[in-house]
């Protein structure tokens, strides 16, 4: 009950890795998964005397993301040093942007419960990623020693900070999903949470409904999936409400989401917060971005999720829900579009993508881009259904097999003899047999219980192992029983 008296105020800080070929301040490769410390050079290792030089592609990508998120692109911005000690930070500071970020004042629209809501984006800035620590043994506290892999050091990141406009975990998840979609559409990032190319921290507070002031916030870290974000926020909001209900005060601190225990735990208090001693990096010159540069990037902007959704609704008459799901991922939307080149019934394509394709992708933990069934192959399957070669039910079976074996629909149908039986003569024989074997349902039907025909159809399907053309079976049964 008490939860209704409060509302949550949430802002997200999202880090995405940019998929440039080389790092932000040197020419090293950014490829994921290479052997430790093989993608390093004196510059990204921060060896004495080395200097950073900005990768122009990173700036291009930041501008592109900024434009896609409706931001103002700063004509003048600069890089700053964020000073702190950590073994994975080779210079003892991270090059970031502090008071003059490259993008500001943007927004994106989310849909929650059928309502569109605009979420403000405070700023987007560029920075370099740190390396990765690997601890010997199971836990950091027991580790005898640790190793550092600097391959990731200097990989370009964008930090995207939202306004505290989100009011529920659902809105936060919708925001993150939309953000991910936009960044994937613009091809600036893969946004793979499991590979760490999309990371999210949240600032959360609660306040009595109707209050103008924000409550004291906590910062949540270590949420490695959309589900974790949702659960962590739910937990933290409840935790804060409980404190307030008990007459207590929320402490401003950083808390970490513990996935196994399903709780947030205190990481450090406000007093223990770092003083990063930001100051302009004297090794880099201010970044001056003229309008031509911005326009050049604007011309490369692709169709974004909202536009594409509108197009699917207007051009193909898809229901809003279908269009939203399909355009939530660029790969999925591309899949849909390509499928339509071979099979013109948009609604049928959409149904198959929404039901079967997504079900199998989720079950096999795959992204749309990695789908083993090509759009052409799916279209071929849909044509087989359309022509009556196989039934819709059999098609689902065939699709799963295509998914797992990579074979074409035609090959599977032929191999397994799954072609639909539409030969009236052959079916007539089976129908007669079913009528003979099932006197009770037959009597029921004749006595007016018309739904008894369903059982009889089922018996015919069983006898044909699902291959009978169900429409034809229906017709034949009615004729024979009348």
């Amino acid at each position, binding site marked *: 009950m008490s939860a209704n008296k409060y509302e949550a105020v949430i802002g997200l800080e999202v880090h995405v890795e940019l998929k440039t070929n080389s790092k932000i301040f040197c020419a090293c490769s950014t490829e994921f998964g290479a052997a430790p410390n093989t993608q390093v050079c004196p510059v990204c290792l921060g060896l*004495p*005397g*080395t*200097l950073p030089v900005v990768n122009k592609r990173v700036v291009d990508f930041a501008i592109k993301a900024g434009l896609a998120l409706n931001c103002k692109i700063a004509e003048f911005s600069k890089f700053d040093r964020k*000073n702190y000690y950590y073994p994975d930070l080779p210079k003892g500071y991270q090059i970031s942007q502090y008071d003059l970020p490259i993008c500001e004042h943007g927004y994106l629209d989310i849909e929650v419960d059928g309502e569109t809501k605009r979420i403000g984006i405070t700023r987007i800035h560029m920075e370099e990623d740190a390396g990765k620590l690997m601890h010997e043994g199971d836990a950091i506290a027991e580790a005898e020693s640790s190793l550092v892999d600097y391959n990731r050091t200097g990989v370009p990141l964008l930090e995207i900070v939202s306004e505290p406009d989100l009011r529920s975990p659902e809105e936060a998840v919708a925001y993150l999903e939309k953000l991910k979609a936009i960044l994937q559409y613009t091809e600036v990032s893969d946004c793979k949470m499991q590979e760490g190319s999309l990371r999210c921290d949240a600032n959360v507070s609660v306040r009595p409904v109707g209050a103008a002031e924000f409550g004291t916030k906590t910062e949540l870290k270590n949420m490695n999936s959309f589900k974790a974000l949702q659960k962590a926020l739910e937990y933290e909001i409840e935790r804060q409400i409980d404190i307030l209900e008990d007459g207590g005060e929320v402490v401003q601190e950083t808390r970490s989401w513990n996935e196994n225990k399903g709780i947030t735990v205190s990481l450090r208090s406000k007093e223990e917060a770092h003083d990063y*001693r930001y100051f302009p990096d004297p090794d880099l010159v201010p970044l001056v971005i003229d309008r031509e540069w911005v326009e050049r990037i604007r011309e490369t902007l692709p169709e974004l999720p909202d536009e594409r959704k509108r197009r699917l609704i207007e051009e193909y008459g898809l229901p809003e829900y279908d269009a939203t799901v399909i355009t939530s991922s660029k790969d999925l939307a591309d899949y849909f579009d390509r499928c339509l080149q071979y099979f013109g019934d948009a609604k049928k394509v959409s149904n198959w993508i929404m039901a079967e394709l997504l079900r199998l992708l989720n079950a096999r933990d795959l992204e749309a881009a990695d789908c083993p069934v090509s759009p052409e192959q799916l279209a071929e399957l849909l044509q087989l259904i359309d022509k009556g070669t196989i039934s819709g039910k059999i098609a689902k079976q065939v699709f799963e097999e295509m998914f797992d074996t990579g074979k074409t629909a035609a090959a599977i149908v032929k191999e397994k003899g799954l072609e639909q039986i539409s030969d009236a003569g052959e079916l007539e024989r089976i129908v007669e047999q079913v009528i003979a074997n099932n006197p009770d349902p037959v009597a029921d039907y004749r006595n007016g219980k018309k739904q008894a025909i369903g059982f009889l159809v089922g018996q015919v399907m069983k006898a044909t192992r699902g291959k009978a053309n169900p429409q034809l079976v229906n017709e034949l049964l009615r004729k024979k029983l009348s």
Partner: protein
Amino acid sequence: MTVYSLTAHELHEKLKSKEISARELARAVLDRIEQLEPKVKAYLTVTAEQAMEKAAEVDRRIARGEELRPLEGIPMALKDNLCTEGIKTTCGSQILHNFVPPYSATVVEKLDREGAILLGKLNMDEFAMGSSNENSSFYPTRNPWDLERAPGGSSGGAAAAVAADEAVFTLGSDTGGSIRQPAAFCGVVGLKPTYGRVSRYGLVAFASSLDQIGPITKDVKDCALVLQAIAGHDDKDSTSADVPVPDYTEVLGKDIKGMRIGIPKEYFAEGLDSGVKEKIEAAIKQLQELGAVCEETSLPHTEYALPAYYLVAPAEASSNLARYDGVRYGFRDTEAQDVISMFRSTRSKGFGPEVKRRIMIGTYALSSGYYDAYYLKALKVRTLIRRDFDRAFAKYDAIVTPTSPNVAFRIGEKIGDPLSMYLSDLYTIPVNMAGLPAISLSCGFSEGMPVGLQIIGKPFDESTVLQIAYQYEQSTLHHQARPALEVR
């Protein structure tokens, strides 16, 4: 004159005419090093073997009749904060006592391509912080003119090596006077180029917005030749300017009649040693005799340059030196049991007292709550200092001042009093704060020690600075004076 006493341009002629070979020359300077090092201690590392190999290579080129570039075969040495691939680069610090860079600084590559012969790496105040070389964590270098005195700093080894004929020329670095002050103390020529004129890639950073690499030479012509070899834009240094590099030797010998020179009165106020003042005034008179128009002028914010510098430079240093944490290279305290104590003890054992002092000052200046009052304020002062110079240069072609308020002091004299040590850079610091080019050259002696004359130019106008310096030098005999170092 013995071969090691000659300048690069004189030696170039002798190599070209095959009067001497590059190997004979290198051997002569290496022998000189061997004889004098126990006294002078200018070097931290001597690379005799590599030097002789490179000299043999030059001799082969000469034998093939290939054209000899100006610095080809000339023995030189580098301040130990310039990264040299495969050769230890310590910055005069315990924390880098074993650091061997896997790459070379841009200037090192350039000199190598020009065929100059590297003899070794030179002593310096730890991380270039100091004005006497006493902050070297290995040993202090001594002034060849008086072994009881300091050679200045932080490029003390680089200046002493040239003065003692232990190298024909050297490269130093100058953040607040670290080329010019030791050049003045050792009676040699030292040039700090305009900020951005020479690539800093491979120079171990002290204060990135102030650091510049520059030559220390026996005369002005050599200075022009070495600057020619190292100047120019570098893709690896975003702060290196894409400004065309003129032919610096072209202006040498051109008269300075009618040239307008400003003499800022603030540089002749309290604190200037009377012996130094006398020599500077004589030098100004000499410039007038050469046809220059010298006028008193004012740089009103001069007195704020030093305090502002001691916020900006330590602030940048506190961040630049954060990387020395014992994780990847250099000294590590292996007794530490966890990462935080490893950072702490590595840094407290690895750095000397002056470096720690500046890290603390800089950390404080950047701290939240103090940033605006210290660091930001210092940046504003810096702008005012730059404007002072802008206004003066609207009227004058160059500005002339003493390089240092005093001649070389005795080793131990100031080491216990950091503030009085800092004051010896009073006249050089404003130039770094404004990013201008300036040269120091000898203009006589006081107390038997050389006095340095500083000539400051407009941004990227090293040519005018060299032109005036050359005219002055050629009209006096100071550059020919050599310290009497007895060699047994």
